[in-house]
């Protein structure tokens, strides 16, 4: 991957990282979208979508509830999609290492969001006298500073992750000799179990919820069995 490509992905990571919380929370940062856009940028939208579907299933259990600390899937999905589309070598091994890279980035991204919130807190504390005086320019400045810092966070995280992970995944793919079918099967089983358990934890308490699940599952399996 060239430096120009890394910078382009970093710019995308910056904007999609911003969408996670700060602006506009339109869910462009959901893996199924973010990874697809990264894939398109890297030359294969369908590969980006495939990586995005895996990450989306793993991200389904993450609820972006206010003060909680959670993995940041926006920049992580850009990193995952970028790693997968820019692969050199076996596609399934590349998918495995792209998923691994994305999940580590999501973890680090969660910590970076926590750090940003602490930083916002310090800036707000420092601006308290002006806020108590009802100074509109300080209110606007705090908002813009928060947006700018989040944009920078996404850019730096994506650029650093790709700069570190592209060479590492290239080496790992070259040395990786795992059975493609097994790798893909394990990835699918893990992703489906995370998504399924997330949906169950969120919604099984609804009236007749488990029956809706069984009904959906029966229709899904019947559709698979159709000739």
């Amino acid at each position, binding site marked *: 991957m060239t430096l120009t490509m890394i910078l382009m992905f970093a710019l995308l990571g910056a904007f999609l990282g911003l969408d996670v919380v700060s602006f*506009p929370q339109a*869910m462009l940062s959901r893996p*199924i*979208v973010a990874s*697809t856009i990264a894939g*398109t940028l890297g030359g294969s939208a369908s590969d*980006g*979508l495939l990586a995005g579907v895996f990450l*989306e*299933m*793993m*991200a*389904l*259990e993450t*609820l972006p*509830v*206010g*003060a909680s600390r959670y*993995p940041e899937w926006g920049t992580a999905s850009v990193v995952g999609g970028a790693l997968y589309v820019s692969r050199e070598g076996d596609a399934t091994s590349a998918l495995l*290492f792209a998923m691994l890279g994305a*999940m*580590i980035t999501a973890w680090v991204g969660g910590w970076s969001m926590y750090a940003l*919130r*602490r930083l*916002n807190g310090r*800036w707000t504390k420092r601006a308290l006298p002006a*806020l108590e*005086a009802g100074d*509109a320019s300080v*209110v606007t400045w*705090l908002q813009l500073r*928060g*947006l700018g810092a989040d944009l920078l966070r996404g850019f730096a995280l994506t650029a650093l992750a790709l700069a570190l992970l592209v060479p590492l995944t290239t080496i*790992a793919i070259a040395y*990786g000799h*795992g*059975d*493609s*079918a097994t790798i*893909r099967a*394990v*990835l*699918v*089983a893990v*992703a*489906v*179990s*995370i998504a*399924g*358990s997330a949906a*169950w934890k*969120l*919604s099984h308490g609804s009236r007749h919820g488990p029956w809706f*699940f069984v009904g*959906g*599952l*029966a229709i899904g*399996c019947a559709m*698979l*069995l159709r000739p």
Partner: protein
Amino acid sequence: MENQTVRPLPFLTATRMVIRMLAVQASWNYETMLGTGIGFSVEPALRNLPGGRAGQAYHEALARETHYFNAHPYLAAVAVGALARVELDERLPPAQIERFRIALCGPLGSVGDRLVWAGWLPFTVLVALLAYGLGGGPVLVSTFFLVIYNAGHIGLRVWGLNTGWTHGKRVAGSLATPILRRGPEYLARAVMGLSGLALPLAAARILGHSEMPIADTARRTALGPHALVFLLLAIAALLGLALVKLHGRVDGWRVALLIVVLLALHSVAT
């Protein structure tokens, strides 16, 4: 009756407020949470206070509106509308406005979390996964998701602002609307049904992409070419069951990370 007497927010002011509300969490922090964002979003309306931007009333109101506030970011629109109304039209005493602000936090947080984060978001994600499982391409799947999700997202923000402005200090009653009251329950059922439907289809499509050495064997079984999918669904169900049992103690994504790390190490080591 009340609605007929309320003058609407000027269009330009309302537009400014909606755009600013998209950045309501821009300076989110653990001390004031959404406070600065609420002040930022209400500010265009406060310009209409007596004396305009240079007036004492404007500065006092803006100072109040930047205090601590916590709510769901989309439903914060209800608070923004209601606070604009009480500051401009109802002219409540400052202490009463402060109490009103605090009283709004709880309901707007819990209703929003249940309706959006635990309902609308997983519902639309599962619709997108279903579209993928049924063969949708990258443009269709991602556009479909964004259009459906944001129809609800933007609709909720605009409705929230209008409702808050219309009802002012009596806005709490509007939170009992059927969509907010019953919506999470209906969405939860839809999420359950969709997860059962979409996940096997998405899994089958992913596996259909790969060349499976065991697919030939699988074709000879009673379940046909998707025997492998059913076997994996059974394994996924067991792992999922374990995650449900460990709810609150273990995060699923951490377990997934551990498994992926082990798989990667195995892949490199063999």
